[in-house]
Every structure is written in C-alpha cells, then in structure tokens.
C-alpha cells in the first residue's frame, strides 16, 4: 500500500495543479485578446529582414498594417513580387503588377572626370564635405566619401574611383543609401526590366556652367527630349518618366547616339555579354574593413 506521507505529498501536488489550472483557465478566458490570425500568417510571409523599406518599423508592424488597416500589399521592397503575391493571396485582393525598386545613383563622373577639385582634409564623410564649399566643382554630384556605403546593410553599393556604384545583384531596394546621401542624388527607380536607362547626372545648371565643372554631366541641351517623349528637360536636367517607361516598346537608340555627353546610361544586372567578357579573368576578392571605427572618419591627415 502507498504510505500516507506519499499520499499527502501527491495530494498536495494534485491540489496545486488543479488550483493553478483553474486560475490559468480563468485568466485565459478573461484576458482573451482578439487577434486576427492573418496577422501571424502575414508576418510569416514577409522576409523578416526588418529593414524599414516599407516605411514601417519592422515586418510585424507592416503585417499588422496590411491586415488591420488595409495597407497596400506591394510595399515590401526586399521581398518583391513574390511576397506581394503571398500577401495578396492572404488578404484576398488582387495585386496590380509591381516591380522591384532599386537604387540608382544619378551621377556618372569618376574622380578623373570631375573638375575644380580641391584638397580636402576634413572629416571623410559626404555629410561633412557637403557642408563646405569648394570640395569639388560640381555642387550637385557625388562626393565619393561613402556615406551610402556605410548605410547599406547588404554590401550593394561601393565607391569606385570616387563614384558610388550600385551592385544590382545585391541591391534589395530598401532605400537606406537614398536616405543617407546628403545630396539626394540616389533615387529608387522601378526596374521594369533587368536593365533600365537612367540619367546619370543631377546637375541643374546648363551649358558652360556644367562643362566647367564636369566632363560628362548633362548640359540640358534638350536633344534627347526632342527625340523621345519619355525624356523631359526639367530645370536644366534630363529626366525619364518611369511611370510610362515600357521596356518592351522603348527605343533609345536615337537618344543614345545623339547625346553629346555621357549622361544616358544603361544600369542593372550584368548582361550575358558582360559576364562573358570577364569570364576568363580572376575577380579580385572584395577588400572590406573588418572593423568599424569612428577614428577613421575624423583622422586628420597631414
């Protein structure tokens, strides 16, 4: 027979278990919160990068906005079309065709092509250099100190020869670089094809004022706008209308041949021809700093 002490111990545990179960059961019913199960499913469908590209603080916030407030399902730039489709299926809405947004740097001048550059020994950041005058001739274009590189979490932008260049195989369209650029020359462009035509200049001056500071910037001559109705001249600078841009019907051969400067450029992922051209070469490994330090940016050289 079980001894009485064991019975008492077991009984005490049983009573405790029953009491706590009652309390928790009551709490479960009383403190019940109505949560739409779709919020959980929406959070699962999102990539979970919490990058803020959609405009919300995290993926969970955006999921809640989509389910509860009926936010657009196409805002996730990192997830792209597949995530938009998944969210649309979840909400039972139809998704209009959406394209991935990618960062485009509207400047095409490397250090060699920029004129009137002066020796700069201040803080090596674009934000600091932007605040003083005379670092380089063009007051609109890329400074090349790499604030965008610091902002990018995906390693998709780098400064080469003093110009910021986007790696479209890594760019997720989160927009961090666009927000970091103090001169606002990085914009998010919808990539309706793997390669799109962009205007790689932000200089709003015309004619001689541009040629005095840069060998490749847009002078606002208007030849492209006359030849193709997707292009307009807007305060001395060519602009492409991406809403009406249709890669299937757009024909830019004429404008590309007539542009006197090198301001109209195809950007995007490398074409098979580009890849074949370097197929036999050994690509150097990316040299990346393996530490972050605040000292470098304030180092006084000289």
């Amino acid at each position, binding site marked *: 027979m079980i001894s*009485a002490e064991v019975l008492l111990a077991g009984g005490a545990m049983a009573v405790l278990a029953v009491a706590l179960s009652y309390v928790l059961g009551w709490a479960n019913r009383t403190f*019940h919160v109505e949560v739409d199960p779709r919020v959980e499913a929406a959070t699962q469908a999102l990539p979970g990068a919490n990058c803020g590209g959609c405009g919300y603080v995290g993926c969970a916030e955006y999921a809640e906005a989509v389910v509860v407030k009926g936010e657009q399902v196409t805002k996730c730039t990192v997830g792209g079309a597949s995530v938009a489709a998944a969210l649309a299926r979840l909400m039972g809405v139809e998704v209009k065709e959406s394209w991935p947004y990618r960062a485009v740097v509207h400047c095409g001048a490397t250090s060699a092509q920029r004129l009137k550059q002066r020796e700069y020994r201040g803080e090596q950041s674009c934000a600091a250099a932007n605040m003083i005058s005379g670092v380089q001739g063009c007051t609109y274009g890329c400074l090349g100190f790499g604030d965008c590189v610091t902002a990018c979490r995906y390693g998709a932008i780098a400064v080469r020869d003093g110009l910021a260049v986007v790696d479209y195989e890594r760019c997720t369209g989160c927009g961090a670089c666009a927000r970091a650029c103090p001169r606002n020359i990085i914009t998010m462009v919808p990539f309706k094809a793997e390669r799109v035509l962009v205007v790689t200049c932000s200089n709003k001056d015309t004619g001689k004022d541009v040629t005095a500071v840069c060998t490749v910037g847009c002078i606002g001559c208007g030849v492209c706008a006359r030849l193709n109705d997707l292009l307009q001249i807007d305060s001395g600078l060519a602009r492409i209308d991406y809403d009406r841009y249709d890669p299937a019907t757009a024909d830019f051969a004429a404008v590309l041949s007539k542009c006197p400067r090198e301001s109209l450029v195809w950007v995007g992922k490398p074409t098979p021809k580009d890849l074949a051209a370097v197929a036999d070469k050994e690509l150097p490994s990316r040299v990346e700093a393996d*530490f972050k*330090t605040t000292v470098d940016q304030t180092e006084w050289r000289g």
Partner: protein
Amino acid sequence: MEYVSSLVLIAVSAAFINNFVLYYSVGICPYLGVSRRVDMAFGMGCAVTFVISIAACLSWALTVFVLRPGAPLATWVWHWLRPDSAGVVDLSILNYLVYIFVIASSVQFVEMYLRKFFPPLYKSFGIYLPLITTNCAILFACLEIMKHVSGVPAAQLWDLGRALALAAFGGVGFTIAIVLMAGMREDLDLCDVPQALRGPGIALIVAGILAMAFMGFTGVDRNLAALLR
C-alpha cells in the same frame, strides 16, 4: 524602525553587494543574449523584476503555509486524515517542483494580463516573457527565500516583507547589471575587438571587469547596519 532597517539592508545586499548576476552568476543566459541594446536590456530587466516579485510572493506563501516542516495547512490536513499520529509534517521534498510550477504559471499569467491590459507594454517586452520561465534568477530568488523560511526556527522565519524585498531588489540589481552591460556593449560595437573574442568572449570579459567593480560594494551592508542602528 528595526524592521525597516532590516528591509533596507536586505535590499541593498540583494541589489549591489550580492548582485544576482555579478556575484551569484545566475541569469547569465539572458544577460548575454539580451544585453546588446540599452532599451531591450531595460525591458528585460523590468520584466524579470515584475515576474520575480510575483513568483517570490507565491512561493513564500506556499512554503510557509504548506511545504515547510510543521507548516500549518499541511499539519491541519494531516491531523484531519490521521488524528492520532505524532511527528512533524514535512512536505519540503516538493519544494523544487512547486517553485518551478509557480514560476511557469505566473509567467503565463503575467503574459496574458499584459497582452490584455497593456498592449504597448506587451509589444515592448512581451517577447522576453517566455525566456524568463527558464531564467535562473527567478528560481534562485525563490531558493534564497526558502533558505530563510524552510527548516529555520519560528523566531527567525522571514515574513513576506523581507521575502519581497529580497526578490524585488534582486530584480532591480539584475536590471542595473544588464543595463550597464548593454551600454558597454553598444560602445564595444565600435571598437576593434579581435575576431576570436567577438560576441560572447568580450562580453564575458567585460562582465568580469564589471563584477570586479561591484566587488567594491563589499562591506557596505556592515557600515549601513551600523549607521541605521
């Protein structure tokens, strides 16, 4: 007055001199895991303090009235079942089971309560609550209280006030340690740490130095006791 001074001594001892994390080395897993940012660390600390207080109250009550040798409720039930038996009723073998049960249930209860009545608070530190169930610090507080409640003569039995002071200020000490650690780790992110030591390695070394700093509090309780007398 003597009661209040004993409470003050217990509180100071639990928060600074015998800090749960830096002296007793309990609660290390969340300490290393959550201490990367100051706001997250503070949220975790608040959640731990809250749950520790509730769990300590419940476990004190259960230990004093049911589990300790000669506990009133257990003795009453026993004499009702077996009126002619002698000896002391001792259910303290069930201590650990009961404590862990109480902790798990109170965490569950707090989570449900927060979710219903304080949604913004739930959003900010609700995710830490399931982590707290297996947090050594809570069980450790219950065990420390047990030391002063189970198997001690009736004159030295700790009352609820002392138990709560130990638990709550133990939680406060945990919060202080974790927030200090988070502040230091935020700065460490900008430093040139050798590759091998990055992450838990350097965090532990910095925690060790912080523990050394907290060793400076030794003897404060003796002088405080003299002051309060």
